[in-house]
């Protein structure tokens, strides 16, 4: 068959799989996502017309909710792949078939990352200034330029591997390991690098002592290993319910065990940071004071979130450390939700805002995200979840429906 026709068949065939033959719940979910996206677009058009003044951001706190979400999702993208890659490398069967979901989650997460960066830009019309050759990529000195590089390369790799695997399965062929394995191996350092480079983006700012700590990148990786797998575990259980996708308890338990290690490391590193700041008690402590209590006698608007995040992390750790609780689906799921939101709050709010408060001249601007920001963020999540849902629907249809269970052996 003409390869072009094959590709066309594949595109339309998978398109049909994505939109046809779903349950009412599935269409309801799609409708919900569409509503999310539409209200997000409306909010963004408002922001586009007025400028970033419609956000809560100002000169003192110039990055906020958008960049926090971006950071969180980079972590999800990195962890999703790092988690499932050993399956390829060590040929460990129980989590073998979930690799593709990790890659698809990474794709959706990176798309959301790029969207969050776009909505945060003052001049999105000048995005091409970041391109090589026609623009001015400020390499090697700008970490932001590096971040743009690694994120896009990571997106391309994962998009390619995921669609190639689906494409092969669709055509009933076995994938070519000579293509897949090198790319999967490449995506390991890439996954580490996207989160490390993102951490370096903050870490390298000597002007912001809150971030200027050598363990920031390790903390990023550790927290990502908590939130990314949490999302995947819940997803696997949903898929197991609604499709023929069959993941063994053994695999879920293994992932949960990894997560327990990551949670210990995450809290340990966090504790190390907090100890250093409070014991040395330098001027830099003001940022932690703003995070956990407040400054100049005023309660910080983010303190409640900081404590919530910490409490969630501790409870989740307890759940995951006790094997019995970890192995009971009910408690494990509670733990997953808790750690997911703990990291989400930590990256979305507790990481960015205190870095800017007080600002470099000691002035306190009490930033809270505006309604526009929250709505745009919901829209971006809508887009990401829609992409992910459609990809999962297609891959489940191809890989795990009874009559098409082929090829991915």
């Amino acid at each position, binding site marked *: 068959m003409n390869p072009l026709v094959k590709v066309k068949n594949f595109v339309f*065939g998978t398109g049909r799989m994505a939109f046809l033959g779903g349950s009412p719940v599935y269409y309801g979910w799609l409708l919900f996502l569409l509503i999310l996206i539409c209200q997000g677009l409306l909010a963004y058009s408002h922001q586009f017309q007025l400028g*970033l003044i419609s956000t809560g951001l100002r*000169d003192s706190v110039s990055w906020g909710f958008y960049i926090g979400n971006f950071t969180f999702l980079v972590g999800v993208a990195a962890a999703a792949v790092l988690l499932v890659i050993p399956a390829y490398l060590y040929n460990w069967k129980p989590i073998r078939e979930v690799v593709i979901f990790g890659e698809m989650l990474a794709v959706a997460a990176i798309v959301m990352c790029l969207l969050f960066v776009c909505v945060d830009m*003052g001049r999105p019309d000048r995005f091409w200034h*970041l391109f090589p050759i026609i623009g001015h990529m400020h390499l090697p000195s700008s970490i932001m330029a590096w971040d743009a590089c690694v994120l896009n390369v990571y997106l391309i790799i994962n998009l390619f591997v995921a669609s190639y695997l689906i494409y092969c399965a669709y055509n*009933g062929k076995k994938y070519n390991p000579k293509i897949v394995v090198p790319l999967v191996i490449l995506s390991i350092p890439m996954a580490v690098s996207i989160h490390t480079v993102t951490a370096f983006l903050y870490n390298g700012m000597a*002007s912001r002592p809150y971030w200027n700590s050598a363990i920031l990148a390790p903390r990023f990786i550790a927290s990502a290993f908590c939130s990314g797998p949490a999302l995947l575990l819940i997803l696997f259980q949903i898929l197991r319910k609604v499709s023929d996708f069959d993941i063994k308890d053994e695999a879920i338990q293994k992932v949960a065990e990894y997560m327990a290690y990551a949670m210990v490391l995450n809290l340990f590193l966090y504790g190390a940071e907090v100890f250093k700041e409070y014991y040395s008690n330098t001027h830099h402590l003001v940022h932690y004071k703003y995070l956990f209590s407040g400054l100049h006698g005023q309660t910080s608007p983010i303190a409640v979130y900081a404590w919530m995040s910490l409490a969630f992390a501790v409870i989740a750790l307890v759940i995951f450390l006790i094997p019995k609780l970890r192995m009971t689906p009910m408690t494990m799921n509670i733990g997953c939700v808790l750690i997911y939101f703990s990291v989400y709050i930590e990256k979305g709010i507790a990481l960015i805002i205190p870095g800017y408060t007080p600002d470099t001249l*000691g002035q306190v601007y009490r930033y809270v995200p505006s309604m526009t920001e929250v709505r745009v963020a919901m829209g971006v999540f809508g887009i990401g979840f829609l992409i992910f849902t459609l990809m999962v629907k297609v891959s489940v249809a191809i890989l795990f429906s009874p009559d098409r269970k082929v090829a991915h052996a």
Partner: protein
Amino acid sequence: MNDPTDISPAAAEPQELGTSRREFIIGTFYALAAAALASGCAADQLALDEFVQKHFKDLTPDELKKTIARMEKKYWEEYGANIKINATPPIPGVLYGYALDLSRCIGCRRCVYGCIEENNQSRNPSTPWITVLEMDKEGGVDLANADAFYDHEQVPAPGKFYMPVACQHCENPPCVKVCPVEATWKEPDGIVVIDYNWCIGCRCCITACPYGARHFNWSTPIIPKDQINTNTEYLGNRPRPRGVVEKCTWCIHRVRKGQYPKCVEVCPVGARKFGNLLDPESEIRYILENKRVLILKEELNTQPKFFYYYGL
């Protein structure tokens, strides 16, 4: 492994009609898009030119001239003022330096508003380039307890001293380092400038600046027409668009023509000093050689060319 090709849903469906319909739709879409693009471009050639405009340093002299002409025209339409944009080159053998006498500054904020008018800063929202900090004499330079919003009947307030802060024009500027698109750089005469037509508004530089010197145009700047300063510089005080970063340029449009920056001229107590660091006979060199100077946050190795000193 079985062969799924036969049961592929795509293969199972009749193709002919669908394909031709699709092609028709796609063809129509492209035609419409092309038409929209063409008419849009014709209607707004200026916007297109602005969209594809090159980095300041990549412009040939001829392109620069055309770009400036286009901008001046646009400013005329926007502000009804005949704004003249210069692209004055740096003076060879000059490295600017600035000194401010902390023992004389009384915190009157004349510099703040002189700067706003001279540099076509937005009046609403107003994010002035100069921040005057009030601190306790007994506490010394302590930013954590500094107040930028003091509002006394008279200054100086008892027991207080004042520290105006704007761009420090670092020799080692972190803002330049972090910019992903090289929209900001240090000129040979030491002034850190921004190409407002290249900045993408990512605000990395605002984050990297340890002095709160950089400000963002959160919305379209508003300048009353009768208050526009029409003597402007491409890399300096020409009106900025929304969504880009701006900051003090030591009045690049004045100093490259030999004048003092505006803040030096309006300071009622003569606390502000400016000159050529490479000229051993300059006022600024006299201060560096005869006074005890301090720089802000010296531990960050930004090497500011803005020096604070105690003249008394």
